[in-house]
């Protein structure tokens, strides 16, 4: 899946995730309006948009942490079912990384990473521990395995959170602003892990305003405004020649920072 020329992954063509005419309301407020999004296996999609444009809501609808009002979300050939065991099983195949890390506060780093495989996948403990250690080393926090989350820096916590998701061998990874709660010097270490994942061919949907990441790793950028997808295209094209007025406005505001 890795392209020889530039080392970036290329989508294989098989659609892994399909969001079809999804609408989501909170009371009278429409947070998502007729959203369509297809993500191919191996594809890396970056979602951009102003605050309140519905990026997080879209992410959360993809693994049904948020229920939808109409439309369909089809993952790996199956429409997401109602809350229950079946949905839990599908969710196990979708990793999610949160802005606020959400590591289990009462568990050690190692336990955070082994809990899912042991309890959800029924992986034997010894194997889960071995895999968890390998993952923790891969994201560079191997020496912290017996610490509790509160004892780690934000960047370390977020890397553990990524390892926790990867331990489930997900087919898709969702990232909702994984670096926006981090100090600048920690952003790099998390982005490096994400770029590495993208290069290894992981299918990713990432909400992030880190243009460096989008340029380096994304196959496609999706721009949202007021609950709708208003523009989508290759990152270079989007950043240099945005087609819509709203995308131009948005880019000029984030470039000022």
């Amino acid at each position: 899946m890795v392209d020889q020329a530039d080392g970036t992954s290329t989508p294989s063509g098989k659609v892994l995730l399909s969001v079809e005419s999804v609408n989501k309301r909170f009371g009278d407020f429409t947070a998502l309006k007729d959203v369509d999004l297809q993500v191919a296996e191996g594809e890396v999609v970056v979602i951009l948009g102003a605050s309140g444009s519905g990026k997080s809501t879209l992410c959360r609808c993809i693994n049904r942490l948020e229920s939808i009002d109409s439309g369909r979300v089809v993952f790996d050939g199956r429409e997401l079912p109602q809350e229950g065991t079946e949905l839990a099983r599908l969710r196990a195949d979708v990793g999610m990384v949160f802005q606020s890390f959400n590591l289990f506060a009462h568990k050690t780093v190692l336990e955070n990473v082994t809990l899912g495989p042991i309890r959800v996948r029924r992986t034997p403990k010894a194997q889960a521990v071995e895999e968890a250690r390998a993952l923790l080393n891969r994201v560079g926090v191997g020496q912290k395995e017996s610490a509790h989350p509160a004892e780690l820096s934000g960047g370390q916590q977020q890397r553990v959170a990524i390892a926790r998701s990867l331990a489930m061998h997900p087919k898709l990874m969702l990232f909702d602003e994984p670096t926006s709660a981090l100090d600048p010097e920690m952003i790099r270490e998390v982005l490096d892990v994400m770029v590495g994942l993208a290069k290894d061919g992981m299918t990713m949907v990432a909400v992030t305003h880190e243009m460096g990441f989008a340029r380096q790793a994304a196959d496609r950028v999706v721009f949202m405004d007021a609950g709708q997808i208003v523009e989508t295209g290759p990152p270079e094209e989007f950043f240099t020649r945005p087609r819509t007025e709203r995308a131009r406005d948005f880019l000029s505001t984030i470039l000022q920072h």
Partner: protein
Amino acid sequence: MSEILKHIGVLVGGLGVTVELSLLGFVGAAVLGIALTIMRVSPVTPLRAFGTLYVEVFRNIPLLVFLFLFVFGLPDAGISFPLFTSEAICLAMYFAAFACEAMRGGINAVPVGQAEAARALGMTFTQSLRLIILPQAFRTMVQPLANVLIGIVLGSSLGAAVGVSELTGRVQILELQYDEPLPTVGLAALGYVVITLTIALVAGRVQKRMAVRR
């Protein structure tokens, strides 16, 4: 006074009955409270509604009224229990509502992100409750649950009004016999204070232990 001291054994026995009633009531309230709490945080609407209704009903009637209803009303419907059993059941049912509130408070104090991360990993509702939420919630529940237990101990004295022979009931009889309210009722008060202080002390210890374990 010396007359009353002759009956100290009766009073200590009453204290024993009070402790027994309280413990039974508390265990019942805790078990019922867990069930109610699971209902109230479950994604199933009818269960949530039932849990809420139960809590609201019991929080809004006096314990004494419920005791009267249970002890004098139920036999009319053909159901009756021994007095001691009746009061234990009443305490359990009544304080289950408060135990539920204490437990729910503990659960609500756990950040929602914890449950979301658990669900996102593919855990079922029960797994996320058991593995992630409850262990963290328990720490904040200790003090409120201790308060529920103290409420049960003090509330058990209402049994005197329906003829249960616990501490207050026995004090009442001695007081009628000797007409010495100060020593009799004073001794009873002392008995209750000893129990409640013990509970507070133990709760403080337990909470400290849990804080270290994280």
